[in-house]
């Protein structure tokens, strides 16, 4: 939509919106270096809160737990999400597709208290009836996180599947490749960026989840957001600011790297395609 350029008013509004989004985060980071415990009165520069953070064993254990959980969740969510995306975009109509589509996209909007409660009750009922899962812990957290993350990965991957040029897939099929080969050899490399961003999205969703985790976790499986939440309830502390700054830093670096990498890969692929087309034309002549 490049018909009109943006007016000054448009750019100003954009600037205010970005200020709204980023100023709180900037203040968070600035005050993590505040000497004083009072989070809003500046009394000097200090990195002591970062030191305190790393001495907090409880928090460190929770952080490691959350990272492991997020990693496993993201991987499972991408696998399930990709399968679901393929079903939604490549398999035409089949009986029960509407229901399937509803099942897959409902977690996108479902309030977390409902998902959390329902999953916990499922686990408790299963335990009553079958003896599994044996108490709540990493497994129940993993199942719960994967369930709501899969909805997001499905959306990411299916939008890429819809955008891509399907004629390449059709050409491969015409040349005799079976569907699974078409997918793994042709489609997968093309949608790879979507898989990566889906993975990253699921990773951050899992890492940040509080409500669902609170419902389905058990003793000994406390996640980082749960620790942060109980700490925040007790009052504001610069230690949390320090933690927040670290998280923001890591996420920014990760996204920038991922973005640059995917941009380069995409450019490389485009160049290779152009070369292939040029060679083909050359041979025909």
């Amino acid at each position: 939509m490049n018909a009109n350029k943006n007016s000054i008013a448009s750019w100003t509004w954009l600037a205010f919106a970005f200020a709204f989004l980023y100023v709180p985060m900037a203040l968070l980071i600035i005050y993590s270096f505040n000497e004083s415990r009072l989070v809003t009165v500046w009394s000097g520069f200090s990195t002591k809160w970062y030191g305190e953070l790393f001495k907090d064993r409880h928090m460190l254990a929770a952080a490691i737990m959350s990272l492991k959980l997020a990693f496993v969740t993201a991987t499972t969510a991408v696998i399930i999400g990709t399968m679901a995306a393929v079903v939604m975009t490549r398999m035409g109509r089949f009986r029960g597709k509407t229901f399937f589509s509803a099942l897959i996209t409902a977690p996108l909007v479902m309030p977390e208290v409902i998902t959390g409660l329902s999953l916990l009750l499922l686990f408790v009922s299963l335990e009553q009836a079958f003896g599994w899962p044996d108490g709540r812990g990493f497994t129940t957290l993993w199942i719960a996180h994967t369930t709501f993350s899969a909805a997001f990965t499905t959306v990411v991957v299916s939008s890429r599947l819809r955008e891509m040029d399907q004629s390449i897939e059709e050409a491969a099929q015409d040349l005799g490749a079976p569907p699974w080969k078409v997918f793994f050899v042709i489609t997968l490399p093309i949608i790879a960026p979507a898989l990566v961003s889906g993975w990253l999205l699921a990773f951050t969703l899992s890492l940040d989840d509080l409500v669902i985790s609170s419902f389905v976790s058990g003793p000994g499986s406390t996640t980082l957001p749960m620790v942060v939440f109980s700490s925040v309830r007790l009052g504001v502390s610069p230690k949390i600011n320090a933690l927040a700054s670290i998280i923001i830093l890591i996420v920014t670096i990760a996204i920038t790297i991922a973005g640059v990498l995917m941009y380069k890969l995409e450019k490389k692929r485009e160049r290779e395609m152009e070369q292939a087309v040029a060679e083909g034309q050359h041979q025909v002549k």
Partner: protein
Amino acid sequence: MTAGSLAPQSLLKRLLPQPRWFVIGAPYLWMFLFFFIPFAIVFVISFMKPAVAMPPVEFEYDLAGNIELLTKNYTRLFDLDDLLYINAYLGSLKMAAVSTILALMIGYPVAYAIARAPGAVRQVLLMLVILPSWTSLLIRIYAWIGLLKNNGFINNFLMWLGLTDSPIQMMQTDFAVYIGIVYAYLPFMVLPIYTNLVKHDPTLLEAAADLGANRFTAFWKITVPLSMNGIIAGCMLVFIPAVGEFVIPEILGGPDQLMIGKVLWQEFFNNRDWPVASAVAITMLLVLILPITIFQRIQNKELEDSQ
């Protein structure tokens, strides 16, 4: 695969488990087991009695002549003597609706501005809008405490400027919750609207100009109606989860900000009354069925439009 071929070989081939079934079956099974079945269980438990036990539900059930007992949890929710639950439901709907409208008013111009920016800049701007939502929500809401407190950043700034003598109460008000929800969900509003706007045909606006419309008219008569799908999708993506929000009203709101997500949490964790919590959840679900259906319809329309 020629249709109608009944030669023994191809019939056998069609009866054997195909990879296709697995690809459909695996995610279907997962979501059915871990998303759908749980709701059925919540539904069943919402009719049960709480017990002082672990788990705090009486699983043995005596159905004979216990109709009153059956709906006891639900009648409690709508008890006219104790309006707690009704107020919480209405309060949540109001909060979510106001926040959605605010998010739309702020987010639409943002999406519009990004869609009209030059190509490469667009990607960067979009990235900048989405980036905050990749960092922890809990932590970003926590950041607002420091801003909104009575001795927080905004109040200190206003008093330093001399605009006010005593701090303005912002924490634990409706206002704080509105800010929190808009802050958290703004990217969810911007993204669908942007995706929609970016597909608009620029020649439509040129045609309107040729026919004598000014930019204002062209915007309201062409751009807005065309972007309706995006607007609705964005609003649903904000409204529905906002109704059941727990974290934001808990951290930024106070006892006056009664939202149904908090009520459910308290029933579950503080009162250990799982059946009532379940009844609250089912009622919340029923309230949200309409917006959820609207959202699914829009999703399916988008899917079909692009195929």
